[in-house]
């Protein structure tokens, strides 16, 4: 997951959460959209079915009332008489019955406004009786070629409902009608006696269907079992091939419903098989069926977006909350890096971060303990070294000095013996000290004066001078730093010199430090010798541990920038400078 490899955990968590929320929102929106779209679709499907049912019911009620009239008519005594007689005798003669029948037809017509005509035909298609008067009828009228007449004869007494057609039996009257026709057969020998027909004004059905709205552009059409269109709002358009209708699919559909795949124009067909072989088909446009689909989509998008935003804010807050203890712990560690071991993490939660914090605090405690211990040990080590050093000075010197005293005593140089013994005593007193490492410069000077006094007595060809700035006398220095230096001057500088060797000890106050110098006019040193003299690990000959030890002690006590520096000219002499801080 390099995508989530951020510099901060907070970012990683926030981004991961956001992605998760985004994905969840999308999936949920998608699913809920489809579920509700399905529900809406189902609902409008149901309502379309309801509409179809209603249309079916009202059409059926019209047709069944026609059928009822036909049954009534065929059971009418006059009609039965007339038909029976017409098969035998000349029907024209029976004018009285004919008039009665016509009146009966008239009464049917006047009580049923939707019925345009009621007629009775002979088996050969010639008109027997009509509700109309003769002048309204076309002369030489014969119905035998009419489809409904042919169909009625084929059906042998069963009711036949024709598709809508123009009833062209009347003078200058052309009406769209549906004709219900049935053959009248003799009860005994099943002979065709004639055909009875009722015309229903097609306007009735036209109006029912025309007023139907399925969605805003859905429509309803009726097709019969052979695919002939009974009603279609765009029948003329269809006949002109400007459009086509899915009649084949309607006829072959078993399920009563199918959906076309026309993209945005996809339609859903719902088919209801009515009586008389008619199929009532409701057509709804899919994108309209779910007309509030867009609203749904929009509200889903809106709510999805709101959820997403809330989620994002929560993700950022949560990630901040998760990562803040880590950041605090990090800040603690940074403090420790700076050397502040007193800091403690204050995270007290019981979770992993809290435990980490606890461990961290324990670890810091341990480190601090170890460091304290190391410091104590260092101190101890230094002190013991110091003691060793001090111990180191004394025996040599004591041995030599005592030798000198013995030698002088043998020569009866009493005065000198006294001087030397006093100096030696003072020297020891000073070097034993009182345990304190730091002493006033004055004391150190006293100490070196005693030492030089002793040495001057021992070596006749040596003299010394001490020039110290009065202002520095009360400042502090490490004890026993000058003695090893002077000792070194004597044994390596002046001892081999012919003539008098002079040792100068000076002390001056600089701006930020005090410089103590030991200057001799001895044989001096070579350059490489000078360079190596302060190197601890390279003891050369007899130079003694003294000089390097002094340097080490100075640096341990005051820091790296303090210590010794040598300046020497071969044959002319050597100058050692001690640099120490100004300490009150």
């Amino acid at each position, binding site marked *: 997951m390099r*995508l989530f490899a*951020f*510099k*901060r955990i907070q*970012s990683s968590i926030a*981004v991961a959460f*956001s*992605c998760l929320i*985004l994905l969840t929102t*999308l999936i949920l929106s998608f699913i809920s959209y489809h579920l509700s779209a399905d529900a809406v679709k189902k609902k409008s499907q149901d309502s379309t079915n309801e509409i179809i049912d209603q249309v079916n019911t009202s059409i059926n009620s019209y047709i069944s009332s026609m059928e009822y009239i036909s049954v009534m008519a065929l059971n009418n005594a006059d009609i039965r008489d007339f038909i029976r007689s017409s098969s035998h005798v000349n029907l024209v003669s029976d004018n009285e019955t004919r008039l009665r029948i016509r009146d009966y037809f008239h009464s049917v017509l006047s009580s049923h406004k939707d019925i345009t005509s009621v007629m009775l035909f002979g088996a050969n298609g010639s008109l027997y009786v009509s509700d109309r008067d003769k002048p309204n009828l*076309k002369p030489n009228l014969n119905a035998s070629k009419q489809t409904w007449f042919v169909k009625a004869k084929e059906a042998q007494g069963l009711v036949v409902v024709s598709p809508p*057609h*123009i009833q*062209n039996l009347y*003078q*200058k*009257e*052309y*009406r*769209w009608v549906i004709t219900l026709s049935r053959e009248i057969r003799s009860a005994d020998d099943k002979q065709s006696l004639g055909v009875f027909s009722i015309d229903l004004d*097609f*306007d009735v059905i*036209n109006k029912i269907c025309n007023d139907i709205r399925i969605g*805003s*552009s859905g*429509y309803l059409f009726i097709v019969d079992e052979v695919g*002939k*269109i009974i009603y279609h*709002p*765009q*029948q*003329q*358009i269809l*006949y*002109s091939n*400007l459009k086509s209708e899915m009649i084949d699919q309607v006829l072959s559909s078993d399920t009563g419903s199918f959906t076309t795949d026309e993209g945005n124009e996809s339609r859903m067909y719902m088919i209801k098989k009515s009586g008389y072989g008619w199929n009532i088909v409701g057509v709804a446009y899919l*994108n309209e069926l779910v007309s509030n*689909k*867009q609203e749904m*989509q*929009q509200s889903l*998008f809106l709510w*999805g*977006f709101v959820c*997403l935003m809330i989620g*994002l804010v929560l993700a950022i807050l949560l990630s901040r909350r998760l990562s803040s203890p880590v950041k605090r712990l990090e800040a603690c560690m940074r403090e420790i890096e700076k050397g502040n071991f007193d800091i403690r993490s204050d995270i007290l939660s019981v979770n992993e971060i809290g435990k980490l914090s606890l461990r961290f605090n324990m670890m810091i405690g341990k480190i601090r303990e170890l460091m304290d211990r190391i410091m104590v040990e260092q101190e101890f080590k230094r002190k013991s070294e110091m003691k060793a050093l001090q111990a180191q000075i004394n025996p040599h010197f004591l041995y030599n000095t005592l030798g000198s005293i013995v030698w002088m005593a043998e020569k009866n140089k009493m005065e000198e013996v006294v001087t030397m013994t006093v100096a030696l005593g003072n020297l020891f007193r000073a070097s034993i000290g009182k345990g304190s490492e730091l002493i006033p410069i004055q004391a150190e000077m006293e100490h070196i004066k005693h030492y030089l006094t002793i040495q001057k007595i021992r070596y006749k060809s040596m003299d010394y001078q001490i020039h110290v700035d009065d202002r520095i006398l009360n400042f502090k220095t490490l004890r026993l730093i000058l003695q090893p230096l002077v000792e070194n001057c004597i044994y390596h500088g002046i001892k081999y010199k012919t003539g008098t060797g002079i040792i100068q000890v000076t002390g001056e106050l600089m701006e930020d430090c005090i410089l103590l110098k030991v200057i001799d006019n001895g044989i001096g040193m070579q350059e490489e010798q000078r360079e190596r003299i302060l190197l601890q690990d390279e003891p050369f000959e007899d130079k003694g541990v003294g000089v390097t030890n002094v340097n080490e002690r100075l640096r341990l006590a005051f820091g790296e920038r303090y210590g010794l520096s040598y300046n020497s000219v071969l044959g002319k002499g050597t100058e050692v400078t001690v640099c120490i801080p100004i300490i009150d």
Partner: protein
Amino acid sequence: MFTRKKVLLIGLLLAGSLFIIVFGFFHFAPKKASDVKPKIMIVTKTSDPNVEFWQALAAGTKVAAKEFGVDIEIVGPRTESDVEGQINLLNTIANYGPLPDAIILAPIDYEEMMPTIEKIKKAGIELVTIDSSVKSGLSSSAIYTDNIAAGDKAGTEAAALLSSSSRVAIINSDKESLSLYERESGVRQALARFPGIRILDTYFCHGEEEKAYEITKNLLSGHDPVDGIITLNETTTQGAARAVKDLGFQRGVKLVGFDSSIQGISQLEEGELQAIVVQKPFNMGYLAVKTSVKVLNKMKVDSHIDTGSEVITQANMYTDENEKLLFPFGER
């Protein structure tokens, strides 16, 4: 604080969500546009309810309006020759509104109403003309019956009814009418294919049925009666058919007419008329609205659309297709 990567990813996330929102709204929103229905005004040549052609045309526009989800309003002058009335109608619309989105116009006299049409176009109204083959750049499409083809059908039908050496007369109504002129040239073009058939002069009845009746009577009662008569509109057809009937079907003259009417249909049934060529006003109305909707949706439309014509004879008048053509619902 913000690493570049983080900024990038957060940006991407925001852009992603924004994209989804925008996509969601823009992809699905346009379909809602149907809430505001475009309004289309149909200006016919006459609002007279007895002229079946315009009634059928109106029925076609209504069906299309329902299908395409538009509001329509049908207006027209009182009579088919009222040029002034039609211009006034258009001026009223252009001057006082409410302005429709499109106008479907059946111009009575295109030349006369040119300034008015220009005014309408300036108001940003789309224009589609019907029932006239005259088309300027101002109208997006012209939907009409190809009268030359219709005339050709009439001529061909007449030739089929007549013997190879017959004499035929043409009765026209108006010299000024372009569509009638086109019908006549169609008839002549068809008859020219039959070298034996001789065309007599074209007679004009100037819109009077009585005149057509007289002309026909003269043509049939002289020393040398014609064998066939072709009449080019409803008026001339009525007059001619009446004359044929009154003269008692003299010498079995063949009469081919134009445009259906109740009289025409019964004359056809009774054999006074042999054939009529009918236009398809329902389709014309339907296609006019359909084309206007396309124009309003900035879709490409054909500049000329022929709605076609049919030859109706006694034999085919009760077929499913022709029944619908001859007998619109609810009209008779």
